[in-house]
Each structure stands twice: as structure tokens, then as C-alpha cells.
């Protein structure tokens, strides 16, 4: 289980997160939504120690990971992987080398063994024939699939997706949705998804938290969001330009 407890974070004089608290249960597909710049990506990066909170605690399976140092975060990052917004494949490595890197570093596998295992991972996302290509030679959708293969290569229990369908065509976006759903249903993986994609949100989310002005505006199921009378949330989920939302 993941718990955010009174998390606060500022950059300079700008308070991004202010007393954010909620829990994410095991096996959930939990969406964090909100306008651009509201702190969604900032919040999930706290979970894996890429950012540190100014105040508050973050608990992962009962461990206060927000107090861990960089070395102590390595085991946390083994069980909690992240798919970044822009894929973030390493330009100087081929796709298969990208996927093999976590195996070599986290598990200490020898390069040859890691590459063999990485090829299997690439096959699972139907990218085995592109293993020897460099990221610059691939389209956005293909890079995203390689990034997902890299994140899943250590068989994590938690996966954080930062806008996984942004910049993808509709077909590729729905494939990513299906993959997230399969991870949850077949492997029991807990997915935390930062997204603006309304189709994804209302097709696969088990629960949703909406961030607004540094706090949680509403936490509930997709049905709760559809039925709420909060005009600000209605404006967001219907994508209306006019309304009370300040951006």
C-alpha cells in the first residue's frame, strides 16, 4: 500500500503541494489528474525518491521511504518502477541495452544474461525486432513500449506512469491502457497513472484523485467524478474552456 501523509513541497516561493494526503490500495489502477503544472508528476516522483518532500511522509508497504537516502532507495526502485513522460531511453544505447540496464545494475546480472532477458521483455511488448535500433530511430509509440519494457523488466509490484498516452495515436494509447489493465488483473501490479487522457481515465481507473491548487480536490471512483456537482471538476472532465478553474 502507498500512503501520502500531509506532503508539502515548494520550489522557491511557489508551493506546489500543500498538505496532500491519501492512500492507494494494492492492485488498484489509481489515476492522478489535474491541470498542467499542478504537481501531479512532482507527487509521484516523491514516492521513488527522485524528489524529497519539505514536510510530510510517504509510506510504501509501511516503510517511510521519504526518509530513505539514495542508497536505501534502490530496493524501493526495484519494486516501484516508473515510466516517464518522454520515455527517457538512453540515446547512446540500443533498445535492448536500455532494457538490460536495470537487470545489470539492480540484479548484478552479467551483460550477456541481461541482454538475453531484455530480449524476452522486448518480445512481450512486440518490440523484439527493434532491439538493435537506437531510440532516435524509433517513433514515439515504439519508444514508449520500450520504456514500458524497461520499467517492467524487474517485475515490480508498483508501476508509476507519467502521462503514458501523451503524444501517442489513439490506437497506441488504447494499447497502453490495455497493458496497464492486464498488469493489474493478471499480475496484481498496482498502477499509479498521471494523465489528462479522459478516455483512459474513465475506461481503466479504479479510483481517481484530482489535484488543484496544491491539494486534493476530490478523491473517488470514476462514478463519483461523473456525478459530482463540483463545477470545477465538471469543467475539467468535460474539457470546457469556460468555468471556475484557474490555470
Amino acid at each position: 500500500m502507498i500512503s501520502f501523509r500531509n506532503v508539502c513541497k515548494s520550489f522557491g516561493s511557489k508551493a506546489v503541494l500543500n498538505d496532500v494526503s491519501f492512500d492507494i490500495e494494492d492492485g488498484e489502477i489509481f489515476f492522478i489528474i489535474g491541470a498542467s503544472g499542478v504537481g501531479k508528476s512532482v507527487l509521484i516522483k516523491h514516492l521513488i525518491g527522485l524528489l524529497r518532500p519539505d514536510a510530510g511522509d510517504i509510506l510504501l508497504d509501511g516503510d517511510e521511504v521519504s526518509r530513505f537516502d539514495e542508497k536505501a532507495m534502490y530496493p524501493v526502485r526495484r519494486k516501484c518502477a516508473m515510466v516517464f513522460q518522454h520515455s527517457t531511453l538512453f540515446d547512446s544505447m540500443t533498445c535492448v541495452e536500455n532494457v538490460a540496464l536495470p537487470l545489470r545494475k539492480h540484479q548484478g546480472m552479467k551483460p550477456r544474461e541481461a541482454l538475453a532477458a531484455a530480449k524476452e521483455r522486448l518480445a512481450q511488448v512486440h518490440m523484439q525486432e527493434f532491439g538493435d535500433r537506437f531510440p532516435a530511430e524509433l517513433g514515439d509509440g515504439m519508444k514508449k513500449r520500450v520504456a514500458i519494457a524497461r520499467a517492467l523488466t524487474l517485475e515490480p509490484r508498483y508501476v508509476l506512469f507519467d502521462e503514458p498516452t501523451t503524444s501517442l495515436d489513439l490506437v497506441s494509447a488504447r494499447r497502453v491502457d490495455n497493458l496497464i489493465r492486464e498488469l493489474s488483473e493478471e499480475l496484481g501490479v498496482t498502477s499509479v497513472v498521471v494523465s489528462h487522457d479522459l478516455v483512459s481515465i474513465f475506461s481503466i481507473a479504479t479510483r481517481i484523485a484530482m489535484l488543484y491548487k496544491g491539494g486534493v480536490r476530490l478523491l473517488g471512483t470514476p462514478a463519483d467524478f461523473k456525478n459530482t456537482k463540483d463545477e470545477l471538476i465538471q469543467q475539467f472532465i468535460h474539457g470546457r474552456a469556460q468555468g471556475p478553474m484557474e490555470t
Partner: protein
Amino acid sequence: MTDSAFEIERQDSGALAVVGRRAMSLAAAAREQYGVLVRTLYYVARGKMEPGMLAHQMYEIGNRSLFFLTVVMGFIGTILCLQAGIQTKRVVPDLSMLGASYLELLVRDLAASIVALMLATRVGAGIAAEIGSMVVTEQVDALRMCAADPIDYLVKPRFLASIVMTTALTIWSGGVAIVTGTITADVVFQVSPHTFWNLSLVHASDLLICIVKCLAYGAAIPIVSATSGLSTFGGSEGVGWATTRAVVNSSLAVIILNFLISSAGFFAFHGR
């Protein structure tokens, strides 16, 4: 805004506050660079290295700088010898010691320092831009997710490669400057190569100072540049600032190290 807030605002924009902020910023940058240096030395001491990374960085830093440095040092050798000859002839007509003084200056100071300043622009900018781009595109965060410390993975190979290749390039570039200086002395001032190649003023201590400078510059450039790259924020504008900062700070580091090592050498070898 309240009166006291106005007062703080007025004080903040005062000359002393500006100097204080600048001094604190410099101290913070120095502390950051020291931290990167210590962590790099720790990983160097551990000894493990990604296969092929060191050779790749040596090629990038050394081989790719070879043509640039050959051209620069060729011209600098010519200009130095020409100016030294003209100035000397104004005082004394005898140019028999032109080569001896030129070689002494080149070995003790100019070869290593000019090579380092050129590397600070070419290599320093490259390191800061590459690492800065990785920071803004979250590749550095992705490395941390893979249990690969960016200092170990990105900085260490550049640090070792820079030390080796700065020394090698200084030897090569010094040779180029000697050749162009010799030709200039022969053609312009009719000083024969035999007279020009006078090593009477070059001592073992000069060679030692030259080697110490090569090692210090070779270590400083990647550390300063990588620190700039790792502290990049924002988008492409941030990468631009990081690159500029890397070139300025690396050049400054070379000049300061030159002063410190030259001073230490002067006092250590009886103020020659």
C-alpha cells in the same frame, strides 16, 4: 506592500546585498563541485567501469579535439615566437636565447594552460550540454531508477578520460607549437633549428609542473562542467545556461589552478 517590506526590498537591491548574494552563490557552487569531486573519487577508487565507456570518452575528448588543438597551437607557436623575436630585437640584437626562453615558457606554462583553456571550451561545453540535456529530458532520473548513480555512470568515465587525454594532448600540442616556433624563428629571424632547440633553461622541475598542471586541469574541466550539467533546470534555455556556465567556470578554474600551481612551483623550487 508594508513599509518594512519596502525596506527589505530596498536593502536587497543594495550593492552589499548583490555582492553578498553573489558570494553565497559562488560558495554554493564550490561546495557542489567539491561534492561531485569527492563522489567521483569514491567511484574511481571502487574501480568498476562500464565496458567501453572509458575508451569512448577518451575518443570523444582526445581524438575529436586533436585537429582543433593542432591548428590552435600551430598558430599560437608562430605568433608567440614572432612576437618574442620582435620584442627581443628592440632590446638586444642577439636572438640566440630565443628558443631557450620559448621552450621554457612552453613547457612550464603555456602548453598545458592553452590546451586546457581550449579543452574547457570544446570538452567542457560538450559535457555540460550532454548531461544537461539528460537532466531536462529526465534521463538522469531514469538512470537513478536503474540503480546507476549519475556520478558513477556519467562523470567518472569523463573524469578519467579527461585526465589521460589532457596530458596526451598537451604533449602533442606542445610538439606542434615547438615545430611552428622553430620554423618561424628560422624563416623570420634566421635562427637555425640547432640554435633554437636550446633546452638549457628547461629543468626537471618545469616538466614536473607541466605534468601537475595537466592532471589538475584534466580533473577540473569534467568536474566543473558535469556539475553545471547536473544542476540544469528548465528546458533548452537551462541547457544553454549550463553550457555557458561550464565554459566560464572551467576556464576560470584553469586560470586559478595555473596561478596556484605556478606559485607553488616557484616557492618549491627556490624561486627560480
